């Protein structure tokens, strides 16, 4: 028995020692979306601060395809040594698992932490004259199926929020997926659609210029760097029991050693709170946040429950 305890203690000390130097080589962050998109831009704003905190080089790889699933799967199948991480938003794993059969679940990863939270908000071209989301909802009821709610893609946070608005508030929007945020942004700027449901702070410059209005939000806009939008009514204020948004954070493959996870968490916290990333975040539109791995994971559990509920009630046809 004594031998066994000594043996296990030795193994434990050896493992601790082997991770003591972590990280000592280049860390690869996989972004499952194409370069130039929202998540990619946030990743590139974060990578400098993360590299500074880690003391090693950090590179970004865009592994695109399959509505984000390809990059997620690649990380899932990577060696769990902490050198290959996924940088992504919460809605990919939640959405894909709710609506598609995927080889991964929320349990397939370890959660390092979250650093950038943005709710999904509702924009409308000023020419449409909507005073609020409630106003747009009422008008849609008078012309069922005629008013268009644009979303970037099917089965993502935007789509779920559009269905929640239709389902819970009795709105009658026709939901159209535009195959990407850039197309959707063009459609709302060009006054082609009635409302645009998209991750904040997309098109915030047009809001500041008075071309677009923020008329509703899936979650609190308290962290937005545009004061007039801070107190915008949320879905819950309109008696729609949903809180929709996305938090970008880091995931590691399942089974990544605890010591490595702790170290990664420390590095990430330092980076998320750094002046460099704060400056980037404020310019991008939102102040960064710091969520621990546990909190970041909890967002997935909440989201899964919420998406499943909305799917069952309003999207099962």
């Amino acid at each position, binding site marked *: 028995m004594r031998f066994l305890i000594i043996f296990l203690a030795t193994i434990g000390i050896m493992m601790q020692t082997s991770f003591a130097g972590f990280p000592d080589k280049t860390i690869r962050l996989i972004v499952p979306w*194409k*370069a*130039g*998109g929202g998540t*990619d*831009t946030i990743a*590139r*704003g974060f*990578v*400098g601060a993360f590299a500074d905190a880690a003391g090693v080089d950090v590179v970004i*790889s*865009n*592994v*695109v*395809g*399959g*509505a984000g*699933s*390809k990059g997620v*799967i690649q990380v899932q199948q990577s060696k769990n040594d902490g050198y290959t991480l996924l940088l992504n938003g919460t809605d990919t794993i939640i959405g894909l698992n709710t*609506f*598609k059969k995927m080889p991964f679940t929320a349990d397939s990863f370890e959660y390092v932490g979250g650093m950038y939270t943005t709710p999904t908000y509702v924009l409308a071209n000023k020419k449409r004259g909507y005073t609020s989301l409630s106003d747009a909802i009422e008008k849609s009821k008078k012309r069922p*199926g*005629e008013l*268009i709610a644009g979303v970037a*893609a*099917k*089965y993502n946070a935007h789509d779920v929020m559009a269905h929640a608005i239709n389902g819970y508030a009795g709105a009658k929007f*026709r939901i*159209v*997926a*535009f*195959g*990407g945020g*850039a*197309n959707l*942004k*063009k*459609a709302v*700027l*060009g006054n*082609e*659609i009635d409302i645009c449901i998209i991750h904040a702070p997309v*098109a*915030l*410059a*047009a809001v*500041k*210029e008075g*071309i677009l209005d923020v008329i509703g939000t899936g979650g609190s806009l308290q962290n937005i760097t545009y004061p007039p939008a801070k107190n915008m009514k949320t879905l819950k204020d309109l008696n729609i029991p949903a809180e929709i948004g996305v938090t970008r954070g880091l995931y590691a493959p399942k089974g990544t050693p605890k010591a490595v996870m702790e170290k990664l968490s420390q590095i990430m916290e330092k980076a998320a709170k750094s002046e460099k990333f704060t*400056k*980037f975040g404020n*310019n*991008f539109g939102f102040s960064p946040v710091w969520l621990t791995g546990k909190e970041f994971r909890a967002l997935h559990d909440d989201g899964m429950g919420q998406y499943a509920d909305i799917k069952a009630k309003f999207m099962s046809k």
Partner: protein
Amino acid sequence: MFEGLIGGFYECLQPLNLILLFLGTFLGLLVGALPGLSSPMAIIILLPVTYSLDPLPALLVMIGVYVGTKLGGSFAAILLRTPGTPASACTALDGFPMAEKGEAGLALGYATYGSFVGGLSSWIIAVTFIPVISAIALKSSNADIALIGIMGLVMVSAFTRGSMLKGFIGVCVGILIGCMGMDRVDTIERFTFGSLDLLTGVPFAAALVGLFGFAVVISDLALMKSKAEIVATKFRIKLPTFRQFFSRWKAWGTGSFMGAIVGAVPGVGADGATWLAYGTVKNNSNNPEEFGIGNPDGVIAPETANNGTTGGAMVPMLTLGIPGDASTAIMIGALYLHGLQPGVTLMKTGGDVVYGMLAGLLLAGIFMFLIAMGAIRFFVYVLRQHRSLLFPFVMIFASLGAFASYGTIFPVFAAIFLGVFGFIMEERGFPVVTIVLGVILGPIIEFNTRTALMLSGGDWTTFISTWPRIIFLAIIIFLVINEIRQGIKRQSMAKI
């Protein structure tokens, strides 16, 4: 506006900015000339290097790369028939036959002149008509884009020599290949056969280097021991004169106009503009039968259109924050990373950078012209070597290009498969260019048609609900009727 531009030129002409712009353009030409490597790839790699620079110098490097790759891609298309981008694939149609006839210098010269004139005229149009270009970008809806795509596709006759039926089958095969992967509208997996790699579909880079580059190598293996007939045997490389180039005003005029206008339409950009310009010039030519076998107009039209899209794509990016293509999408991200806020307020909050970028666009075109004219001799020299030396390099660079597109080995295998497939198809008389056309335009047409119908609630009259759409449709109908008429005429002539 004018004062802003003067200020922009003043900033660009600062020694450091000028050097960076020059280096970016040089790098762009080099990257573009390597099959499969593209402008977005180069810009994203350069992005971290530019973090320490001020916003304007950083963006000038990217603009240089953006402009340079447009022409560089055509060099590979002309000399190796291995285009690096969908836009430069069209240039291979007449550029490569010219090179085979020993007129590589002429083809490269026409491409360089064309790119320069296309970039210059598009810049003038874009800067003079900023509100018009912005409006085109904003108002072009899915129905318009679908019709522009169909217009390009019905011009398939311009890309086929011989049987129209085989051309049509080629397009259908291309559309089928383009269908593979997760569809953008319903996120349904199509023809993926359970493969994770195929979720993204067949990569463009793999289709291009495979169907063009690898297929050429396979078909020319028998000539392995001979020298490439890429230039006339005499050492002097013949370049076109300005007079020769400007006499072909129909080609460069059409290309410039199409580039500036179609380039502003997000989602079509250079990929569509080059094919449309080529098809229009061929259809309006007195000698359409000379196209596809080495007509200089077939090089000039797509090349002017290709660089002509730079102005059209840049203006909506700067004024509205709407990217015209993948490169300008990355530049929007770069603006954020450099502390600016792209979008409608950029002109106000970062006017100096905007005007500096516009000035840089013009200067990059001049650098591109000067570097390329100097480099033609070098490229042709390299291409004069034995095929036994050349082909391994073509295969290596094409494989590297395919690999770099996704960072995995899958596109390389896809390119090899498509190379063999393209070779067999071409041997059987199916022009591979029609397959490529289907791969490029098929997804654009499908996605935009479906979205247009969703927006209209399934009402097909949306395709004739505005004057531009009626005109597009009329052109499509005219082209189809004309083609049928000519087909019947050819058949009756053959019987006689």
